[in-house]
């Protein structure tokens, strides 16, 4: 009964403020990209709505098997909105959201079939390929050697979307560009292997590439390190990696492909606070400013000469004049259509 009291106590306390919970993807806080971006959104909301909400977060075990339990425990303990960071939460949120119809859930990157506005689940989806298209264009514009590279973490349909968008963007600018592409590994560990990330990037640089884009989580640290060592360019991913890089590395980060998970998280919390949370699908593309490329104090000059071109391409994508491919098939079609 003590337990019940405690739970009730927590619930009563919670009634005054909305309780927002977030469960990270494997890797957790400090991955310098995806999870950190989500955390930034959570923090921003916590600050802005300090008197209306209280926030909390959880990390799954290393293998991530307890995702579902963590979601459920948060739901049981009176949380009002619970985020699952990453498409691996798809099935779990689907199950748990049915058990707790009064709790709202937000799923980042994952898509659950058959939702509508009244559902208690919102899927926050990103057009990573659009952002990648832009940084691909930037890479091709900046490359002097006509060779660029891509390093992915674990191969998966999601990471392939980054790769495909990037390649398409580069080819769009320079049809003759040569693109090297490597993946680090075949397990989730590939997202935390900066050693292999660096070696793969180094190899690409040695083969002549002068810009390398990565979509490999914490392994990207190695890619950036390789660029700094070789005095070539790296392109970051998810958050603005110039900001988290070291002083010595910054001059070698051309830009980052921004995936505004922070915006998505923030906006979702905001809608709840303002009482207009809607279920269904929320898409974050270039149009919504949900993806993009980073500009900051460190790379302003680096991209000054190509910025107008990038903006031009961005407009075309938004207008639909350029159709950015999302997978290998569309990419091949894209190549056929653009350069027959």
């Amino acid at each position, binding site marked *: 009964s003590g*337990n019940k009291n405690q739970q009730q106590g927590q619930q009563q306390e919670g009634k005054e403020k909305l309780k927002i919970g977030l469960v990270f993807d494997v890797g957790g806080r400090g991955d310098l990209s995806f999870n950190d971006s989500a955390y930034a959104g959570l923090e921003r909301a916590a600050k802005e709505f300090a008197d209306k909400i209280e926030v909390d977060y959880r990390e799954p075990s*290393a293998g991530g098997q307890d995702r579902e339990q*963590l979601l459920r*425990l948060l739901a049981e*303990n009176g949380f009002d909105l619970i985020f699952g960071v990453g*498409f691996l939460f798809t099935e779990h949120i689907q199950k748990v959201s049915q058990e707790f119809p009064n709790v709202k859930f937000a799923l980042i*990157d994952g898509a659950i079939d058959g939702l509508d506005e009244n559902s208690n689940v919102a899927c926050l*989806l990103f057009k990573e390929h659009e952002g990648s298209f832009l940084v691909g264009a930037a890479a091709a514009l900046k490359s002097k050697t006509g060779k660029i590279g891509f390093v992915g973490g*674990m191969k998966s349909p999601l990471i392939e979307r980054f790769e495909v968008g990037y390649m398409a963007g580069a080819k769009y600018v320079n049809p003759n560009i040569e693109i090297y592409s490597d993946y680090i590994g075949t397990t989730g560990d590939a997202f935390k292997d900066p050693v292999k990330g660096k070696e793969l990037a180094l190899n690409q640089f040695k083969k002549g590439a002068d810009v390398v884009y990565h979509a490999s989580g914490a392994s990207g640290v190695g890619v950036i390190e390789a660029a700094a060592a070789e005095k070539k360019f790296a392109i970051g991913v998810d958050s603005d990696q110039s900001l988290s890089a070291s002083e010595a590395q910054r001059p070698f980060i051309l830009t980052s492909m921004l995936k505004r998970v922070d915006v998505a998280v923030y906006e979702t919390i905001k809608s709840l606070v303002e009482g207009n949370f809607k279920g269904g*699908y929320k898409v974050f593309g270039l149009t919504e400013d949900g993806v993009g490329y980073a500009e900051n104090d460190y790379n302003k000059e680096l991209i000054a000469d190509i910025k107008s071109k990038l903006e031009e391409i961005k407009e075309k994508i938004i207008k639909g004049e350029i159709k950015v491919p999302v997978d290998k098939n569309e990419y091949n079609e894209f190549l056929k259509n653009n350069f027959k």
Partner: protein
Amino acid sequence: MKKGFYIALLRMLAPMLAIVLSALISSIVILSIGKSPLQVFYTMFKFSLSRMDSVAIILYNATPLIFSGLAVSVGFRMGLFNIGVEGQYLIGAFFAALAGFSIKGLPAAIHLPLVILCGAVGGMLWAFIPIFLKVKRGVHEVISTIMLNYISYSLIHYLIADLFIDRSQKLIQGLGSILARTPKLSPSAMMPKLHGFLGLFGLQLPRHVYLNWFFPLGILTAALIYYLLMYTPFGFELRAVGQNREAARTAGISPERVYIIGFLLSGALAGFVGLSDLMSYFGYMDMDFPRNYGFDGIAVALIAQNNPFGIIFSAILFGFLKRGAEGIQTLLGVPRETISILQAVMIMSIVVITKIMNDYIKRLEKKEEVRLC
């Protein structure tokens, strides 16, 4: 007789002492982050033991560890270190998944055993490589199984992300992400949960609990392994080879034969490890399929000193710690790493204290013996 009672008491006491000692050490860690150790432990026990679903989840957590503990222990019993349970169970799980999703329309009574069998066969096949290399080429099983674990990771990725990926998955507006996973298992290949059975005794489990028939099967398997080891000629041979290979050989036992059969048995047990998750929880195999059961199995087996029944208990202990970690994280905001530390300290104190205790008990028993003769 009195001494016998005293010894039994000491045996019981050892694990308790170990738990107390590790709790003390962990308390320092908890204090260092400004939380109250008492509250943490109270919450942990309360949360884990006072709720029906927690208890069931602990047993569910323990299920794969029972099998992997058994698999590792069979290796240890014959003097081999099977670090390869990890790879073996992944391959086993894939074989089971393959039989589960590719065959349709069979009645469950046939399909289910078939899928389980495939799991065991997959584990055996993957175990066959290192033991074959050892017996025929003298390759050290520790090296080969470590290598094969890594190879299995890539192989599995190829199988489920390229070859057998579920192409029926749909994207929403071309977005989100499909999973690199196999198609779903046919319903006839899914292991029933224990809810119905327990319901007969008036125990109602919540729907979100996945405790299933693999748990009783694990206990049954442990009993069978115990019987095999202690009451059959082959089990005797296996233990003899493990404890003195030369003497066994001299007695006409072929260590090579024992190694091959024993390792295949270990692999078959490893094949069961992933099935509880696959056939009751996921229903498919994806890149996120649980890892590390093989390594946890090493600790489970050794804490239990390779005793099959001990393995059940140490697996449940691990399941308890895992559930407890979720509880204190959610209810108290204590980082789950605290539990990892507790777990490590607990393993160490269990082995240290049982060691000291056993030495002491041995001495007591010796005294007893002399008086007898």
